[in-house]
C-alpha cells in the first residue's frame, strides 16, 4: 500500500491534490461530477471585501497547450460567501477548505482575512497578491518584496490559521519575494499564479480579451512553474503549494520532487471536470512504478 497523505501546516491531507482558486468555484459544480471529499482540499474562488462583477467579456482566449483568462476576480463579496456559499458548501464538502483572498488595499486584505478566520470550515488562508487581471490591486502587492511582506505581516496579525501567500511569476526575482513573505511570518507559499499574456484576433486586429491582457495557464506553463517551485524551495523553509499546468499524476510527482508539499490543479479542471479524481486514482499506480512508498518522502527530492 502506498501512502498519499501529506502534512500541511498541521493539517493532514488525504492526498496533496487541491483544485486551484478560480478553477473550481465553491466546489458545487464539481460535486455534480464526483464526490469532491476525495480531494486533499480545494481553494475556493478568490474573495474580495466587496462584491465584484469582474471584467467585460470576452474573458477567455485559447493558445497552444493553454488558455488565457481575464475574469477579474468576479465574486459575490466576503459577506455573501460567509452567509451563503460556506453554509451550502457544508452539504457537499466536509474537510477544511482553503479560502483564497484578494484585495485592493492593506485594510481590505486584513478585513477579509479577519472575517474568514472566524469560519470553522476554513483550514488555510491563501492570500492572493498576484492576480494579473485587476488594475491597481492584487499584483501590485505581489511585485515588490516590501509590499508582499507588508500584506503578510498585516494579515498574520488577525488570524491564527495558516497563511499561504500566493505569488506572482510576473516578477524579476520570485525568490526574493518568497523570502520576504517568509520573514514576515507567512506559514507557506502558493506558486505560481498565471503568467501575464495576450492573444490578438487577426480578423478584428484587436486583442481577443476585452481586458486586452490576461492570465496564461495550462500545461504550457508547467516548466516555468516547476522551475519557480524548485528555486523557492531552496530558499525558504516553509511549505509550498505548487501549481501551474499540472494535469497528470506524473506532473504531481514532478512538482513534489521540485519541492511542493501540496499540488494545486487549475485550468485542467475546466477541460476535464474529473481530472482531480482521475489523478488521485492514478497516483498509487504511478508511485509503485517509480518505487515511491509515501508521497511525503519525495517532497523536494530533486534537490
Amino acid at each position, binding site marked *: 500500500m502506498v501512502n498519499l497523505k501529506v502534512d500541511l501546516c498541521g493539517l493532514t491531507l488525504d492526498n496533496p491534490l487541491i483544485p486551484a482558486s*478560480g*478553477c*473550481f*468555484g465553491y466546489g458545487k*459544480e*464539481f460535486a*455534480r*461530477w464526483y464526490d469532491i471529499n476525495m480531494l486533499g482540499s480545494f481553494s475556493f*474562488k478568490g474573495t474580495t471585501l466587496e462584491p465584484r*462583477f*469582474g471584467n467585460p*467579456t*470576452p*474573458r*477567455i*482566449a*485559447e*493558445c*497552444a*497547450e*493553454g*488558455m488565457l*483568462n481575464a*475574469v477579474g476576480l*468576479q465574486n459575490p463579496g466576503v459577506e455573501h460567501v460567509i452567509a451563503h456559499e460556506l453554509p451550502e458548501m457544508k452539504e457537499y464538502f466536509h474537510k477544511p477548505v482553503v479560502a483564497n483572498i484578494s484585495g485592493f488595499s492593506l485594510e481590505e486584505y486584513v478585513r477579509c482575512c479577519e472575517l474568514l478566520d472566524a469560519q470553522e470550515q476554513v483550514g488555510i488562508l491563501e492570500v492572493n497578491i498576484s492576480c494579473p487581471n485587476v488594475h491597481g490591486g492584487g499584483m501590485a502587492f505581489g511585485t515588490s518584496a516590501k509590499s508582499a511582506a507588508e500584506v503578510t505581516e498585516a494579515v498574520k496579525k488577525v488570524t491564527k490559521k495558516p497563511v499561504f501567500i500566493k505569488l506572482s511569476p510576473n516578477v524579476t526575482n520570485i525568490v526574493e519575494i518568497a523570502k520576504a513573505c517568509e520573514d514576515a511570518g507567512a506559514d507557506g507559499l502558493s506558486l505560481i499564479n498565471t503568467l501575464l499574456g495576450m492573444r490578438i484576433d487577426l480578423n478584428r486586429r484587436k486583442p*481577443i480579451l476585452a481586458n486586452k491582457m490576461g492570465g496564461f495557464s*495550462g*500545461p504550457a506553463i508547467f516548466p516555468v512553474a516547476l522551475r519557480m517551485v524548485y528555486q523557492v524551495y531552496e530558499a525558504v523553509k516553509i511549505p509550498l503549494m505548487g501549481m501551474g499546468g499540472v494535469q497528470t499524476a506524473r506532473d504531481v510527482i514532478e512538482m513534489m520532487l521540485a519541492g511542493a508539499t501540496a499540488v494545486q490543479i487549475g*485550468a485542467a*479542471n*475546466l*477541460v*476535464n*471536470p*474529473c481530472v482531480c479524481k482521475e489523478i488521485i486514482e492514478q497516483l498509487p499506480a504511478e508511485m509503485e512504478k517509480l518505487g515511491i512508498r509515501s508521497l511525503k518522502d519525495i517532497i523536494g527530492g530533486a534537490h
Partner: protein
Amino acid sequence: MKQSIFEIIRHERLTETVFRMVLKGDTSDITATGQFVNVQLSGKFLRRPISVCDWDQDTLTLVYKVVGSGTEQMSRMQAGEKLDILTGLGNGYNLEAGFEKPLLIGGGVGVPPLYALCKALVKKGLTPVAVLGFNKKEEIFLKEDFEKLGAEVIVATADGSYGVKGFVTDAMKGLEYDYFFTCGPEPMLKAVSAASECSGQLSFEERMACGFGACMGCSCKTKYGNKRICKDGPVLVKEEVVW
C-alpha cells in the same frame, strides 16, 4: 451533465462552411432543447461549445459552422472517429412559458438549436413559424428539415438572393405570434427583441472555458442579477436582458 465518448456515424457538408455531424453515444443527460455540448478536440486545450441540433435515445446531431481552427479540424473528422463530449450543458429553452403561436427566429449558425425546439413544439401540437436568416442563398441550410417537421418556414437573405430580402426582422413584419424563441448573432438578438411586442427567449453565445459554470469566463449582467451564459443560460428571457 455527463462526460462520455461519442462515435461519429455520419458527417456531411450542408453548405461551404456548415457541417452536420451525427454521433452515437449516451445522450441521457440532454434534458432540454437549446442546451449545448462541449467537444474535446485533439491538440486543442479548450473544448468547443456547440449547440444541440437534435438528439434521440442514442444519437446526437450537431450542425456547426467552421469559424476557426478547432471547427476546421472537426470538419475533417470521419465516421468511425470518436469524440470526448460533455453533454447536458446549459438551461435550454423553457417550453412551459404559456403561448399558442410561437415564432422561431434563427440567424446563420443560430438556426440549429431551433430545430430540436421546433420538433418539441410540433410534438406539443403547435404549428410554429420559423424565420431563418442567412447572408445569401448558398448559405441556406436546414430549411427542408424544418419544413419536414411541419413548420412554416420563411427565409430571409441579406442580399435578397432567396426569400425576403433583408434581415430576419424584415421577415417578421406582419407575422402573428404571441411568443418568440431566437438564436443568432447578438445584434440580431437585439433587433429581434426590439421588433417584437411579446415576450420571448433568446439564446446567447460567449467565449467560455469550462461550459459548466466553474470558471466565470462567460458572465453577463442581467436584470435578474449576474448570470453565467454556460450554466444559467445560454437562454435568457427577453425581460431580463441588459443590452
